[in-house]
């Protein structure tokens, strides 16, 4: 290990313990780590935006490719920043209208063709794939229908509609349980990773030098 790597491991270990201190309770060490994380992540994000958007799409486009059309979105971008100046904040509406209006237009055909129709096609498959698959297909149809009814608020959820939406809620809960299980596992996996780092990279390799 080089000196730089050793310093890096100590730094990472210190920050890891700082963040772990929140398990005990909210304290100054955690707050320090939290604010440090905030500053670093924003600094990193600025770099990403600069190197991956501003340089290729604006600076290089104007300087190298002589594509002066990008001056228009750059100007609209400056309008967005003018939101910080109350007297001309209304100019940012032009930029938001351009962005949101454009994406609304892009979204309608894209979600219909890319998501809505394929999802419907997968749901409404014929019953010709054997007993087990047909039973699964019935469960899918039942679940999709009842979940859609659960989110349909134009009818009051009473009597038959209430009963159907209750079945939909049951399926939603199974889905949330699945998501919950996966989330717990992902977090536990991260926790194991942090302990491995502390025990192996920090204590074994840096302190004990094994």
């Amino acid at each position, binding site marked *: 290990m080089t000196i*730089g790597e050793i310093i890096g491991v100590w730094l990472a270990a210190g*920050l890891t313990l700082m963040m772990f201190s929140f398990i005990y309770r909210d304290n100054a060490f955690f707050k320090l780590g939290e604010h440090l994380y905030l*500053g670093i992540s924003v600094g990193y994000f600025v770099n990403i935006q600069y190197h991956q958007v501003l340089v290729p799409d604006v600076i290089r486009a104007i300087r190298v490719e002589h594509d002066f059309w990008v001056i228009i*979105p750059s100007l609209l971008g400056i309008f967005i920043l003018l939101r910080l100046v109350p007297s001309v904040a209304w100019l940012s509406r032009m930029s938001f209208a351009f962005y949101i209006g454009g994406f609304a237009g892009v979204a309608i055909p*894209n979600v219909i063709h890319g998501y809505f129709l394929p999802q*419907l096609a997968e749901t409404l498959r014929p019953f010709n794939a054997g007993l087990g698959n047909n039973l699964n297909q019935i469960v899918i149809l039942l*679940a999709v229908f009842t979940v859609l009814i659960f989110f349909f608020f134009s009818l009051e959820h009473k009597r038959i509609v209430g009963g159907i939406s209750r079945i939909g809620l049951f399926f939603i809960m199974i889905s949330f349980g699945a998501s919950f299980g996966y989330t717990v*596992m992902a977090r536990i996996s991260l*926790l194991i990773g942090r302990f491995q780092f502390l025990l192996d990279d920090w204590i074994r390799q840096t302190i004990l030098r094994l």
Partner: protein
Amino acid sequence: MLFFKRQWPIIIAFVMGIVMWARFYIPTEQSQTLQDEFMRWARILFGFAAMLGILSLLHHHWNKIKLKRPGFGFSVVTLVAFVIMALTGLLPVSWTWLGFADNLRSSNGPHMYLFEHMFVPMQATMFSVLAFFIASAAFRAFRARSIEATALLIAGCVIMIGRVPVGDWLASVTTVEMGSWGARSLINFPYVTDWLLNIPNAAAQRGIILGVILSQIAISVRIIFGIERTYMGGGD
């Protein structure tokens, strides 16, 4: 002036929406170029919008320091960390005297050094700490008080067991020979997990997604036709 402030943005949203919508049904090279160019412009706008958020955050912390509000020291940490992280990736100066590579964003550069030894461990730890809080939340949420809560509890537990080695182990030790059916496992968590994920979970997700898509279409139409105007913000 009021026209420019209130009507002009609605006209822009309408024109952009209709043009980008119609473009989908005109499969020509020019139409594809229009879409690509819009996406590029949108990327630039997103960059500026992100910059607005960052400026707003920095402004908040700067004010906190200026007015010496409680905890302003932490704001100093945020600003210093931001400046160091931003400059190490932006300033074209040599860092070789500190043992780093000259290329700012290479894996041996100072920017990536800070990223790997500060950003990554802090982020991973922050999310891993949630494991403890999820465990305590699970204890409260997973008490089977209704049929729906029971469904959540069972699905969550089955999936957790089915996706770890103990699930495979249970399936293997409970495998018995069942005549013409062959060897079958009596407690097969991995199989049940797959079924839960691929059938009821996928179907419920599909129902939710279909609802979201319909809402997205509705809100897009409202934006294009000027019914939905929340993006304009308040004021005149």
